[in-house]
């Protein structure tokens, strides 16, 4: 985690020679939006070029010591769910189409992973506030910032329920009969936590004067600790 923290600073410093951290963040946001949209709008023949560009993002993200395991797991789960459905609905001939659909979704998510793992939520919030009302910008930035925490919560709740005997170990989940257990043992408590948390965060933000001025200022992106 410290390494990741260092990586943020390196990214800021690296870009700092030409651009401020906020400008760098704005460019990163724009690039991510373009690449994510391209994943859906480009013809299949152009997906190879998009993969090559996204690979650069992966290399950059990994260089900054961010982890991509969770995203890969989501991609693998999508593939495992989509392919059998395609097989059942359209037969073997359409399986390749199923792979391409999953690939497009994965390529749409990948720039989001890169953006959220290389840019701080407060900086994203600052950039978003250029074009959105300050409240919307905060909600989007806070939601992005919440992802790592909720991921950690999900991991911990999963581990707790495994220890309590829930049939949700990777081996048990090979059997679709156990999938509902994952939903009500892990996803339901996570959802409850998320609802509670969002309510409490809203309260915490309000108590710290959120919404008091129309144009809030922003924590400086480049500075020296005194």
């Amino acid at each position, binding site marked *: *985690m*410290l*390494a*990741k*923290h260092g990586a*943020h*600073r390196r990214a800021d410093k690296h870009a700092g020679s030409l651009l401020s951290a906020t400008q760098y963040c704005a460019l990163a946001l724009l690039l991510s939006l373009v690449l994510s949209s391209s994943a859906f709008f480009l013809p299949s023949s152009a997906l190879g070029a998009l993969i090559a560009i996204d690979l650069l993002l992966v290399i950059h993200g990994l260089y900054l010591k961010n982890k991509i395991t969770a995203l890969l797991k989501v991609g693998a789960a999508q593939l495992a769910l989509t392919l059998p459905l395609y097989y059942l609905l359209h037969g073997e001939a359409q399986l390749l189409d199923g792979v391409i659909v999953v690939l497009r979704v994965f390529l749409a998510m990948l720039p989001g992973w890169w953006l959220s793992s290389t840019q*701080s*939520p*407060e900086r994203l919030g600052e950039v978003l506030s250029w074009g959105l009302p300050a409240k919307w910008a905060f909600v989007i930035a*806070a939601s992005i*910032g919440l992802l*790592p*925490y909720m991921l*950690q*919560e999900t*991991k*911990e*709740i999963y*581990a*707790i*329920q*495994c*220890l*309590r*005997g*829930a*049939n949700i*170990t990777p081996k048990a989940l090979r059997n679709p009969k156990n999938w509902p257990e994952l939903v*009500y*043992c892990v996803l*339901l*408590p996570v959802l*409850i*936590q998320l609802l*509670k*948390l969002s*309510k*409490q*965060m809203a*309260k*915490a*933000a*309000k*108590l*710290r*004067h*959120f*919404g*008091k*001025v129309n*144009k*809030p*200022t*922003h*924590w*400086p992106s480049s*500075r020296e*600790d*005194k």
Partner: protein
Amino acid sequence: MKLIALEGIHFGYGSNQSEILDDLNLVVNSGECHCINGPTGCGKSSLLHLLAGGLSRPYEGDVYRSPSLLVGLVMQDPNVQILRQTVGAEIAFALENLGVDADLMIEKVQQSLRRVGLYISLDTPVEILSLGQKYRLMMAAQLVFKPTLLLLDEPWAQLDDSGVRELQSVLASLLDDGVAIVMVEHNPSAFASLVNYLWRLEEGALKVGSDELLKTVVDKQSLIKIKRETRIHSGESLVTIQPLHFRFIEQERLFDCVETLSLYSGEIVALVGDNGAGKSSLLKTLAGIQANIPSFPISVLGKRPKLGIYGAELGLLMQRPNRQLFEQSVLAELQFSLKRFKQPLSRAEQMLQKLEMTHLAHCSPHKLSYGQQHTIALASLVCLQPRVLLLDDPFAGLDRQHVHKVVQLLQQLSALGCAILLTSHRELPFLEVDRYWLIDSGQLRDGARVIEQANVG
């Protein structure tokens, strides 16, 4: 100067439920320190939110707020208040919302950070801080906008003793500056030197609290220290930690274990250390669920710890155990693991009888008080009668009644031969433990029975 006054407040969570605040009155003036005590679920946190102006449901009664009133609130669980990823940005959040110029922010943020005794970089990720450090961070996030009324929810439970001492000093200087403080606290004695008014919230109203609570360390007077009568000492070591450098991969060490430590059948051992010492990480490592660590010479029930290999023989209660609750009823929650591990379901009902909680059997666990949820989560593990039970700060935020219930459960389990390892910031005056393991100055060692008197207050 009068900052806030509550008059004839009535508040409840539903038309079918009794009011938790019933004709409540309170006046808070500048420079006063009020401490509110009472059992969990009695409405203390709701009262704090009412004072903060953040109560989500309607209430009856009059509230006077001075024009100069500026309220800061630190909730019981600092995690739910964190809005940013780095320390500096988190503290600066209020300044941003007040439109403070960016050039002025750094100095204000650093002053607040130092005032709560946190000497860390402004770019430190919040996620690497311990719970106690996060509590102090949230204090700094309030102090930065110079509140005239500071509300604190259960600070003693979250902080280690050095943290409490630093908090005492911060609060004393705030009181000198005319800031009013209202704290909800199960252990008022820890802040006895600061408290002007001690209240007990009972039956929805504030009653003057007994001065005895300020004189004695919490729970020492509650006479719940129960001698364990029957202990099974088979001499079998169930947990063994050999000398190691405990650290996360690619990070500096958290502590060194300098001698071989063993936990025997029937023993209760308390692992004591300051916030951030590595207690929770060690417990998760023993349960086989800590990620990002190298291989350590640790053996639990004769095996190297790994998730899913111990079945019902090992139980782990993490912090905020209410996270694990998901069933429709308390009884179903207790029966969940019994079903999965094919053990007698009757144990669930017996457990509720022992805890005198049979009346809650068909209630939703989500509607219980914090203390009740905590007890049910622990009871669901105790039902399994594991051979090793690991508990992360199991008494945090519990009132005397629920501490008593938890102690009873642990003693019963220990009598059956279960080895229990629990973590705490400090000595446990209300639970007779066999030994303490101490994490101090970067070393984990067996502290035998003698531990430095650590309780503040």
